[in-house]
């Protein structure tokens, strides 16, 4: 509980920002869904067959898993807000359409007959009689849709739409359950609050409902116009993957770019999403650049030839291969940093000292050790299978979830585990990443990835970012991750402190 409170205090700012994004996205989706579904249901009223078809269609749309909808939308509309908005609207259509249709359909025929006999026009009948009578049922549908939207909107974080899902995912990725809990709790409370608000609306008179809806629309419109007007024309958008390390790096990028040209507006989108989303975001100009790893490029993003693969396996530098293959896609990768964020075999420093172990070859001499490996690492050719073949390593392996392995090795139940060479826990728990002296693990060096045309247009920016080329060691990166993850310092301040210390950044007067 104390943990949760502390995390809450640390993450207050982010929480407020994500809550804002979440509300904005949810309300917008709701509004769009209402604007589509309500008129459609009104139109379908005298068309029974069309109504049945639409009911089934919206029903089917709703059965598609939300993650799949997002996935299917990415090739069509890219990432970020549009696909999330579309997915949310799709989910909200059924309850709103269904309730509006049923609400109008179930009006006592006597009222319809009276309205008809009084010589009301179609429009007057709708606005004065039918919609007010159906309003509680319609609002009921909107309520259901709202709760659905707020829940589903957390998935927006997967594809860079922000919102409370960011906190949930960051919590999962960084193994901070308190953060996930806070994100989930905030989403649940938001759903409850909106539901309660709408239930009040349900009891209001028709005119008051219109007033409230009008206020929401006007507020939104005004906000949208303000954003459109206030948005700077020439800005550079830098995104990062989930976690502390990309966040620190993009803050360094921002500082370096602004030092080179103080007039440039740089917007950061930390925790923007997973690799494939960021990659397509650059291609679709949703973002301008993001930090990527050479190893990731050659294993997941481009397809190296057999000869190139062989060269990489033989331990040759993957950067030139990655860069030339990216060039064919109209992309480029700037000069990589020094540190190699690859798989690592990790032991405690105490154990290493006691047995005089520095490299994986040293470790292979030992017998009867217990290792806790991630399932994936255990089965990969560039994981434990490769370790057995290349180093003759023989361990008593227990597979476990990646979030557990550091605390388990810290507790002494295992002696060896796998990790990434820049993980902050290596520092936190006094561990040691052993040297891969036979070069089994592919090299993962970080560098900014962007469109070649963008790089050509911004030579000063490229020059500024290349200052990081060959800088930052694994230990330095571990330390910075530690400062952010464990000491709870902000990524921006950690990045700035490092650049100043390295003389890459001059203190502003």
């Amino acid at each position: 509980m104390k943990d949760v409170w502390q995390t809450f205090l640390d993450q207050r700012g982010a929480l407020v920002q994500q809550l804002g994004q979440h509300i904005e996205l949810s309300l917008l989706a709701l509004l769009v869904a209402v604007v589509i579904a309500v008129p459609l249901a009104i139109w379908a009223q005298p068309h029974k067959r069309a109504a049945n078809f639409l009911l089934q269609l919206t029903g089917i749309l709703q059965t598609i898993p939300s993650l799949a909808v997002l996935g299917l939308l990415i090739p069509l509309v890219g990432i970020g807000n549009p696909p999330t908005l579309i997915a949310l609207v799709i989910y909200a259509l059924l309850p709103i359409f269904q309730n509006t249709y049923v609400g109008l359909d179930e009006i006592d025929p006597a009222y319809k007959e009276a309205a008809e006999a009084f010589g009301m026009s179609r429009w007057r009948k709708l606005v004065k009689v039918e919609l007010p009578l159906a309003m509680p049922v319609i609002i009921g549908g909107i309520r259901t849709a709202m709760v659905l939207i707020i829940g589903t909107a957390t998935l927006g974080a997967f594809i860079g739409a922000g919102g409370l899902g960011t906190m949930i995912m960051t919590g999962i990725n960084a193994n901070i359950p308190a953060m996930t809990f806070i994100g989930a709790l905030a989403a649940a409370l938001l759903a409850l609050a909106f539901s309660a608000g709408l239930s009040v609306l349900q009891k209001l008179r028709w005119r008051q409902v219109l007033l409230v809806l009008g206020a929401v629309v006007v507020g939104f419109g005004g906000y949208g116009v303000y954003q459109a007007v206030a948005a700077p024309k020439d800005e550079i958008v830098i995104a990062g993957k989930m976690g502390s390390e990309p966040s620190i790096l993009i803050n360094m990028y921002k500082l370096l770019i602004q030092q080179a040209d103080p007039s440039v507006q740089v917007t950061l989108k930390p925790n923007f999403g997973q690799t494939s989303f960021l990659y397509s975001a650059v291609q679709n100009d949703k973002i301008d650049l993001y930090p990527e790893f050479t190893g990731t490029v050659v294993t997941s993003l481009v397809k190296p030839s057999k000869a190139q693969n062989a060269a990489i396996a033989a331990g040759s530098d993957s950067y030139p291969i990655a860069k030339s293959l990216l060039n064919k896609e109209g992309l480029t990768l700037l000069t990589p940093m020094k540190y190699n964020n690859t798989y690592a075999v990790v032991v405690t420093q105490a154990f290493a000292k006691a047995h005089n172990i520095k490299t994986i070859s040293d470790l292979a001499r030992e017998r009867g050790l217990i290792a806790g490996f991630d399932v994936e690492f255990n089965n990969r050719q560039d994981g434990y299978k490769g370790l057995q073949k290349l180093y003759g390593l023989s361990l008593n392996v227990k597979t476990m979830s990646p979030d557990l392995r550091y605390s388990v090795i810290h507790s002494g139940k295992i002696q060896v585990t796998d990790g990434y060479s820049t993980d902050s826990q290596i520092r936190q728990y006094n561990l040691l990443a052993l040297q891969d002296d036979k070069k089994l693990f592919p090299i993962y060096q970080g560098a900014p990835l962007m469109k070649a045309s963008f790089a050509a247009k911004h030579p000063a920016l490229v020059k500024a970012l290349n200052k990081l080329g060959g800088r930052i060691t694994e230990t330095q990166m571990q330390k910075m991750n530690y400062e952010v993850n464990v000491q709870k310092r902000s990524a921006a301040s950690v990045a700035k402190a490092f650049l100043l210390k390295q003389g890459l950044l001059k203190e502003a007067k």
Partner: protein
Amino acid sequence: MGEMIEFSHVTKQFADNTAVADLNLAIRAGELFVLVGTSGSGKTTTLKMINRLVAPTSGTITFDGKALGDFNLRRLRWDIGYVLQQIALFPTMTVGQNIALIPEMKKWPRAKVKQAVDEGLRSVGLDPKTYRDRLPSELSGGEQQRIGILRALVARPPVILMDEPFSALDPLSRTQLQDLVLELHARLGMTIVFVTHDMNEAMRLGDRIAVMKEGHLLQVGTPTEIAEAPANTFVADFFASAQRSPLSVAVASLAPYGTAVAEAGEGPGDSDAAQRSGASSAKSAPVVSGQMTLSELLPELAESNHVTVKAQEGNFELSASAVLRYLADNEKEQSK
């Protein structure tokens, strides 16, 4: 008096049933004309053809000498007031808003609408200050139908159609509203076409009465003409049944004469429990169903002097003297 509404050779055919067959009928301007008949007689269909809620299959209907089809539909309906059996005051609008519907569509100035609403409320015996801003749900059934009638006549249409407007009301309210209709008709002189299945009501209200059966018009005439010279045995029987009616009403409709009681069975279906609890207390009256007729109740009443009536709107206790009072009231009505 000229003809206000005229049906000539009007037939209405629904899928496999002839609702109205070759109807020829003239309704005169300013008369209170009652269409009476059992269910399925075609009386409501006939009424709804006047404001074109139902379109005739064949034949012509004229309104003030002009074929109905030649009118602009909405304007025609603004000139034909309509009162429904279900009352159908719009529950989302206040009493005042309900009354103002047609004046607003006719684009009356605001002040005139307000004045008409207030005057109208007074004319049906309701205080404008108390009632104008209430919701229909806060009114009794009788009060609601007063508003229903007012809503139909506030814009002073030359014709008002009333479709069994009082059949859902208790006998006391029904009588009061019948008086109101007679009074308004005498004062304003519009043409009223009134549909009912109750011969008593028809006799009480109608300047002239049309008796219908299975889509056919059997007889048209003043109440006296029909009473003295029924066209056939059906009309004679129908007329005679009206005379017997005080004892054939459902006991539940005597609620205004009884005293409400709270306990003794929550609803239909647990009459056993009600019986048992009735037996346990010596003073308790026997429980009877509100659906039995008054004539069926008489032996029971003769025995115990008091009965508890189970009715949907709430249980009530009925004494023999209350029943006598009801019969006396009824007799007074009949002889009017």
